[in-house]
């Protein structure tokens, strides 16, 4: 059990003040977010930059929904990577499996919170969404499938997958042993248990894959089924959502892996192989996404109705052009960086280009999510209302930053108290031996 001892002790050796400082800043930001939300609750959503579509010339969905979509997207890559690793038994990627799972869980919780933040009547929302649930509404899909079902499945997965490590940690941990014991819940890492566990997570992984495709498609449907919003009504909406989800999720995962690798000095376990895989997957997804972007662009410019064209030209040349081209720039930049990483000898195998690419595609994804949500409302009214505009208010920024901080904080706390990298499974030989 040397490895996990080393893990925890290595962490302990780091200067606690830096860590505490980061935590303190994050807590402060979370408090700011809570304050912003309290302000919004008491004064009403008038304190946001949101306004009615049409007569008020505003957007009724803005930054919150942008980040709901973005967070849900992040979650996609997490659990799908974890499931993929399990199903395809890609053992070399196993060290990032838990990071991926945790990313999913954290992102989904943030998405749920962002939805609550966006509701005019949050209390009613929680009660009525269950009490009067209407499966016909794509929103129901978002809420039940994505947030509830998907989050539940991911939690179970994370839980099951972590029991072994919990038990192993409990053996050596000096503090919080109760927590580990609770998680392990009687798990003793016997070969039989291990086997049973393996089977359970395998089937769970199989179940999660269609669930997550459906879930992300449903989120696409929230927008894609709306005839009344130029720029939204499109069959490409669902696949685009899924692929962009993959892009942002993998990018985020790359950043997390690099952070853990550096902080926990796991250069060996989180080796170049992993980054190579992440990089390749990212390249494929970004290319696919850009392909969809071009297809959509051509379709809308060529045959789209005039209102579709109006919205598209607002994106390309109008008020939103800087975001649009900025986002495209991010994707292309990431792509170029990843290709250089392979092509240029002195970059080959370097980690930082993957991290930077990950950051770029996430920026790009946030931009694109914003562009999906907002311009179709401000510039996409089918009746000739005056052109609208939307600028998020400080409350919205504060709340979103609070949410992100909450996510980072949760992630940091988790990695501090739980092995974020799975303990190596015993070799098959060892297994047999144990039997």
């Amino acid at each position, binding site marked *: 059990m040397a490895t996990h001892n080393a893990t925890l002790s290595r962490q302990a050796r780091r200067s606690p003040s830096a860590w505490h400082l980061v935590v303190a800043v994050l807590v402060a930001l979370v408090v700011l977010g809570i304050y912003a939300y309290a302000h919004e609750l008491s004064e009403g959503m008038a304190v946001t930059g949101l306004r009615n579509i049409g007569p008020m010339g505003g957007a009724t969905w803005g930054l919150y929904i942008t980040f709901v979509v973005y967070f849900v997207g992040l979650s996609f890559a997490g659990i799908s990577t974890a499931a993929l690793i399990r199903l395809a038994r890609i053992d070399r990627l196993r060290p990032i499996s838990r990071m991926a799972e945790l990313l999913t869980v954290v992102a989904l919780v943030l998405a749920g919170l962002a939805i609550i933040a966006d509701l005019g009547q949050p209390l009613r929302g929680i*009660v009525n969404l269950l009490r009067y649930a209407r499966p016909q509404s794509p929103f129901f899909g978002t809420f039940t499938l994505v947030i509830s079902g998907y989050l539940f499945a991911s939690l179970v997965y994370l839980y099951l997958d972590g029991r072994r490590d919990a038990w192993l940690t409990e053996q050596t941990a000096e503090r919080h042993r109760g927590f580990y014991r609770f998680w392990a819940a009687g798990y003793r890492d016997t070969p039989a248990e291990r086997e049973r566990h393996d089977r359970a997570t395998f089937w769970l992984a199989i179940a999660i894959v269609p669930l997550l495709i459906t879930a992300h498609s449903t989120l696409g449907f929230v927008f894609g089924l709306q005839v009344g919003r130029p720029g939204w009504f499109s069959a490409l909406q669902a696949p685009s959502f899924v692929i962009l989800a993959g892009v942002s999720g993998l990018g985020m995962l790359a950043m997390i892996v690099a952070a853990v690798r550096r902080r926990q000095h796991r250069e060996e376990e989180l080796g170049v192989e992993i980054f190579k895989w992440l990089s390749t997957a990212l390249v494929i997804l970004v290319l696919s996404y850009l392909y969809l972007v071009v297809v959509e662009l051509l379709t809308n410019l060529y045959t789209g109705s005039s209102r579709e064209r109006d919205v598209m030209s607002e994106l390309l040349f109008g008020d939103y052009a800087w975001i649009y081209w900025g986002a495209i720039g991010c994707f292309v930049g990431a792509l170029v960086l990843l290709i250089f990483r392979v092509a240029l000898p002195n970059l080959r195998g370097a980690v930082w280009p993957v991290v930077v690419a990950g950051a770029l595609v996430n920026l790009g994804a946030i931009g694109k999510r914003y562009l999906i949500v907002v311009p179709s409302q401000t510039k996409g009214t089918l009746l000739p209302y005056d052109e609208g505009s939307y600028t998020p208010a400080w409350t919205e920024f504060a709340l979103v930053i609070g949410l992100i901080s909450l996510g980072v904080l949760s992630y940091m706390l988790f990695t501090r108290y739980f092995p974020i990298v799975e303990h190596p499974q015993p070799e098959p030989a060892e297994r047999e031996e144990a039997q």
Partner: protein
Amino acid sequence: MKLSRRTFLKGTGAAGAAMAATRFLSGPGETLALAQAQGAPVEDYVPATCWIGKQECGMVAHRVNGRVIKFEGDPTNPRNLGTLCPKGMAQIMPVYDPNRVKTPLVRTNAKGQPGQWRQASWDEAIEISAAAIKEARDREPSIVLWQKGRSKSKYVYDEAVTETLGCTKLGHGAFCSDAGYRAMEYTVGLKGVLNPDFKHTRFVLAWGWNMTNSGGNQLCWITWPRQMLEARDAGMKIVFVDPRIRGAGPYADGWLPIRPGTDLALAQAMTSVLVEDGTIDQEYLVTYTNAPYLVGDDGFFVREGDVPLVWDERSEKAVPAGSSGASPALEGTYTVAGAKVRTAFEVFKEHIAARTPEWAADICGIPADDIRNTAREMGAAASIGSTIVVDGKSLPYRPVGVMAYHAMQQEMGFQATRALAQMLMMLGALGAVGGTLSTTKWEIDSKYYEWDAVEIGDGPYGFTLSSSKYFPINSGSTAVAATVMNDPGAFDVETLPEVMILHMANPVVSFPNTETIKEAFSKLKFTVVLSPWLSETADLFADVVLPAATVEKYEGPNSGSDTYIDAVTIRTPPMDPLFESRGEFDIYVDLFDRLGLLEGEGGFIHHINEQFELEGKHAMPTDRMPTARQILDAYAKGHEGIPEGIEYFEKKSSTYVKGPIPAEERYGYAVSPPFAGVLHRFYGESLLRYQHTMKDKGADEIFWRDYTPLPTWRGLTMDDSPPEYDLYLISHKLVEHKQGRTSFVPLLKELTGGQQLDMNTKTAEARGLQDKDWVWVESQNSVTGDTRTVKTQVHLTETLRPDTVSMRHGFGLWTHPEAQDQGPSPNTLFFTGPGYVANTADQSFQVKVRVDRADEG
């Protein structure tokens, strides 16, 4: 009037439980709970009368527990037939406005600056006002000035109040059509401008009639658009004559985008086409106008004794007009007593021979062909010679109408209106079925005679300049009076007003020119204001403000006629006056009581009796102080013969419908004798007489030049401004802000936003201006050289002539918190001095301006 009481579906217990559950989920204070009396609310409907505009639409007040929650149109009122305009609908808000004046106020600081006030009792406020009025009146009654705003209860306010005081009365004229009134009084004898007979007309010239946004002749906004649309559904065509087509909405079949102020030229060009084509109603002109009168070389009628001569075609000699058996010639040049004479019509023909569409095209900025075609279309539509049976009577049928009202408030307004009337005279359309009317009933106003016999004195003149060598025919305009007050010496005026009773008017903002009015009002010694709000004029100049009630009071009578059905309305309060406000009737009764002018012969009650034609048992006793309700009860019983008296209006309906107006009262041809026996002054001989007298007495040309017997085009005063003032500014109305008391009503303000400068897109492009750019608008008075400047935002439009810019009527208020930051009133930019007002002393709303880019905000 239906009176319904509705039981609500739920008892209060159940509703309370539901409310509690809602509270849990939505948080406290989020539902607008109504603090209700125990038990189900009592709901009812009582009559009321709209107060905000000029036509007193009938209303039904929807009440819950005695509190009015909505005003709806009264279906029995012929004018609005159950509907209301946005102003009327929004009126519920100003009624409850927390910014109303709640108690009488007495000024505590110097005048000319924003007022500081102390609250006073009614007793004290009336006492102070009465003392000031009495002091001035005892010296000279005419130095007491009574200034009204929107006309209401004319018999009581305009007549009884002013007669009792013997004071000087100033017409409102804020954006009225005084020049048009004077022209029609003088020419036809009717107190009104021009409106079509929509029920029968086939072709209408909407002459500056902003038909989707403002009123027209006689009526306010709500009735005309309905009648216009009904006529249009029946096949009527409408051609719009206006620098901007915005006001026509989608309803214009043609548009003549006329240059501001050139209406006279256009009317004469169209008339010349009719004359050239011979589209002339000879019979009308010969029989009912002075067109056949013989005119000598000096321009005056040739007379025998007092009677003008006509040329009898039968006897081929000049005979006195009206000689039996004579057949007067309409045209021709004859020799009478050795002198060459022409008929007045002949003079006119020669006068307009050169006034062709080509001539007018340059002046009006409209292609000559468009003018000619429109004239011919109108001529054809007039179907001269045809008749129609109405109410069993065969009458001339001339289905061409003109709606001209506010547009006549211009530099040449008096003569432009006469030019329009002459155009209609060619067709015999004045007073014909389907033709053009002026009043609801064809009743001759005494002014017809008075304006023909003005004795121009030598001065010193009264400050309104009536019977003066400057404005012998006179509208009694506040704007002109203000100009005089600022420089009395220039107008031979010695006595200036000292005390003003300001009745529901806000001249500082609603009359042009703001600076002139302010300067003049600062000279007044005492001003008492009757108003529900602290008007801008009150803010600067009132010594005492008396809070008048709005809709919640007794007031009347007012006409409820839609021009086809006769009706009378009396305002009754749907609830008690809010705060300490009171109706004006009661205020005046109190004031006159304090002045000792209430009772007895010559007292207020006596004058009301006279105005209401109350005699014998119906007359109010002149020795007893009446309430407003008693006054109107006397009217209802005594004048209208309604047995229930005022109760009819309190309980049954806002409106007492008397029935259709028969053809014999309505059409000029149908009244007996036709046109009530007056001869239409086609040729204005007395105008020439005045011109001579004015010249003799040394008046400048600028005053006498428009006193011509025939309307005569001349270059406009505003066109003498330097070339950098290269745009014409006009103001237009929005239906939401047709009256002054609207821009602080949040509901109405929301619909329109504030001031803006409409500008043609191409004009803006040439100046590098874009939509919403800030600009300085500077007007210039070409006579005095004065300039005035305001700042506003450009609004680009394709519905306006490129050489014209337009601002919205209204705005520029500052006392009401909701009215601030709406931008300036265009009245700041218009001028009212000599050259800028018509020859009848009224106002104009056109000026040359320059527009320059300004810094933001």
